[in-house]
């Protein structure tokens, strides 16, 4: 089984420059664990103690997984997961 995962430019340092990698799992959480085994450090950029990182958008096919089941979202063979860092900022001092 294989799920295509599209990697944004800023995370390609973890995938040896690859813009697309493959993973397995029956939920998004399992898929991310699998990706982290294959590409060490990638997991940390996607999740933290609270779950999916706030300023990283993850999509299952064309839906933001925040509107599905987050890390519990089921994934299956043939799905495409896309990662896009949120584009955000502003005058607020962080």
């Amino acid at each position, binding site marked *: 089984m294989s799920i295509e995962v599209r990697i944004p430019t800023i995370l390609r340092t973890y995938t040896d420059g690859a813009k697309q990698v493959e993973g397995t799992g029956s939920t998004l959480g399992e898929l991310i664990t699998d990706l982290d085994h294959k590409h060490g450090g990638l997991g940390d950029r996607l999740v933290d103690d609270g779950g999916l990182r706030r300023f990283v958008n993850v999509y299952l096919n064309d839906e933001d997984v925040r509107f599905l089941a987050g890390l519990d979202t089921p994934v299956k063979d043939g799905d495409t997961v896309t990662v896009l860092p949120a584009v955000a*900022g502003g*005058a607020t001092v962080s």
Partner: protein
Amino acid sequence: MLTITRELRDKIVAHARRDHPDEACGVLAGRAGGDRPERFIAMTNAERSPTFYRFDSGEQFRVWREMEDRDEEPVVIYHSHTATEAYPSRTDISYASEPGAHYVLVSTRDSGTAEFRSYRIVDGTVTEEPVAVVE
């Protein structure tokens, strides 16, 4: 150096003025590898805030997918500051996630003029760059 047409520059400023006092934000897409902004894409500020912006996630997905289909990339990512100077804040720097983009900042704090400045933000380092406005 950011090279940009007057028309695109004016569209960014007009968008910033229109959304004032909320921050405006958007993208200029251009041919991948070309470093020339060509296509103006105003984005919804999902935060609708005078001090913070964030692209709506669904809209960002569609726009990024469309750019990929057209062999484009985000050449410029712009947003406005409505009460402070057109310089990247700590928030801007920490969330900058497109290392190849020119980050354009417009300030609408003064209704008479619009400050328009451009920066590279790579690995947490900000470098201002000159802006060449062409016809």
